[in-house]
């Protein structure tokens, strides 16, 4: 696992945009499984602002990746590129060796909870079943209900099944969203600041649940977080991002003074380095 650099391959990028298979990573004679996340010199502009520039990385199966960086660093934009919601103007992004967005059923996504509309009439079981049906359910079928119950149980939230989403606390809502992401048994779990707005205990429950799921299934986890201590403790790879990659490696390699100072631009992260 290393930042990928080299000349951009326009033909390969064009093939990816056409929805065909992305080029296999360079390697030995045996055909290796493609990396779960592959980004090559990704560049994104939103209006006049350069949000991502020359971002290259490869994440192998079974990795727990934490993406850290200051506000406005492009972390959420990177997640959107990985999900296929944003097409980069430069470079290319592939998941499981295919163009990003080609296989939503293999990805479990947990969005930032602040986007949730509390006026929407829905129960937790309906939300979880969207992870199976990929559309809003009129009636949750018996088989969907069983799978959704199992997913809620996995995250310790079986009692929430019939509860209205509007009445859930931040931590309960986060568990419901996590159950929605896990119900389809994804090979990649992508989380965008999942701990924002939840208390300390709920945050650590979340990390434990993710580690347990990863241990059971061998899935890859990629999580945007502001919590450098959580990144150090739970992740086995950390991407330090501020528009461009400032560090990509093990927590010990990149959660260090020079790397963080380059990304954050000040020394306010000392408390996190104390862990």
């Amino acid at each position, binding site marked *: 696992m290393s930042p990928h650099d080299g000349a951009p391959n326009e033909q390969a990028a064009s093939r990816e945009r056409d929805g065909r298979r992305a080029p296999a990573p360079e390697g030995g004679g045996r055909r290796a499984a493609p990396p779960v996340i592959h980004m090559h010199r990704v560049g994104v502009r939103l209006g006049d602002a350069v949000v991502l520039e020359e971002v290259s990385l490869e994440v192998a199966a079974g990795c727990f990746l934490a993406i850290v960086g200051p506000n406005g660093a492009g972390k959420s934009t990177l997640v959107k590129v990985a999900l296929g919601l944003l097409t980069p103007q430069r470079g290319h992004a592939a998941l499981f060796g295919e163009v990003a967005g080609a296989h939503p059923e293999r990805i479990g996504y947990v969005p930032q909870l602040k986007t949730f509309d509390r006026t929407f009439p829905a*129960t937790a079981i309906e939300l979880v079943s969207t992870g199976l049906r*990929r*559309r809003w359910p009129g009636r949750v079928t018996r088989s969907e209900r069983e799978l959704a119950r199992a997913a809620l149980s996995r995250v310790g939230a079986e009692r929430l099944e019939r509860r209205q989403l509007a009445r859930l606390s931040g931590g309960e809502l986060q568990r419901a969203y996590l159950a929605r992401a896990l119900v389809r048994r994804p090979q990649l779990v992508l989380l965008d600041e999942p701990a924002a707005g939840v208390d300390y205990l709920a945050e650590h429950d979340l990390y434990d649940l993710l580690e347990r799921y990863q241990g059971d299934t061998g899935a890859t986890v990629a999580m945007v977080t502001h919590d450098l201590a959580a990144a150090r403790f739970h992740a086995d790879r950390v991407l330090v991002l501020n528009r461009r990659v400032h560090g990509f490696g093990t927590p010990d390699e990149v959660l260090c003074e020079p790397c963080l100072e380059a990304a954050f631009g000040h020394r306010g992260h000392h408390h996190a380095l104390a862990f």
Partner: protein
Amino acid sequence: MSLAGALHLAFMQRAVAAGVLIAVMAGLLGVFVVQRRLSFLGAGLAHAAFGGMGLGAFVIVSTGLLASGVGLLRHPVWIAVPFSLMAALGIAWVRQHTRLSSDTAIGVFFAVSVALGVFFFSIIPPDVNLGLSLMDLLFGSILSVTRPDLLVILGVAAVSVAFLTGAWGRLGYATFDDELARTDGVRSPLLEVLLFACAAVVIAVSSVVVGIILMAAYLVIPAASARLVSRSLLQMTVVSVLLAVLSTLAGLALSYLLDVPSGSTIVLTQAALFVVAAALSRRQKAGAARQ
């Protein structure tokens, strides 16, 4: 004549049929209008229909279509529908491609459409008989629905109900969380354009019957009442359609019995049902708090 006797009259039967069809369309559409916080859209598109009617009336008069043997061609609605459609697509484009919010985009089209409507209606010679008064356009004339009008409404209802029920799951998902739906392959920008287009056609056709001013209420009040007493989107959809149909039938009956314009009695019935729903919602909340 008694109410039961009145139901044997052809014009009353056409009014009931047109009212029920409009109620079903508005009840279904209203769920997405209310949950997407687009209540102003109904008013905006209804007023766009007014601009389209003005343009239509001017075209009919100035091109001699008023003397056409084809009834529909003498009606400005065939220009109001594409005009409203253009306005809806314009609002969707502004929402998706600029930093302006929905209400600003709708406000712009609203004002321009009313100005166009007033402009065109005022340059039509006053002695021309369009068979449609300005009051009819503003407040509707459900009792004067003709058989061709009813067939047009039936056609629009068939297409719009097919779209809204067929795309219900994807529309619901995108309404709940647009980003989440797109990560699951739902093409929500296209769905939004289709939803707006559907709303434009339904509103333009229905405005002739229930009036421009009251059409916005049709899209909002039954769905808002349904939201107050529903625990799921499916329940909200079913209750919204039922309340729209019930208020239409009750409003028409009251209109006949009290001899007042039907548009006002329909909307006032909807408002009464909203008050009942709000009271039930308070009781439900109080019950839940005690548990």
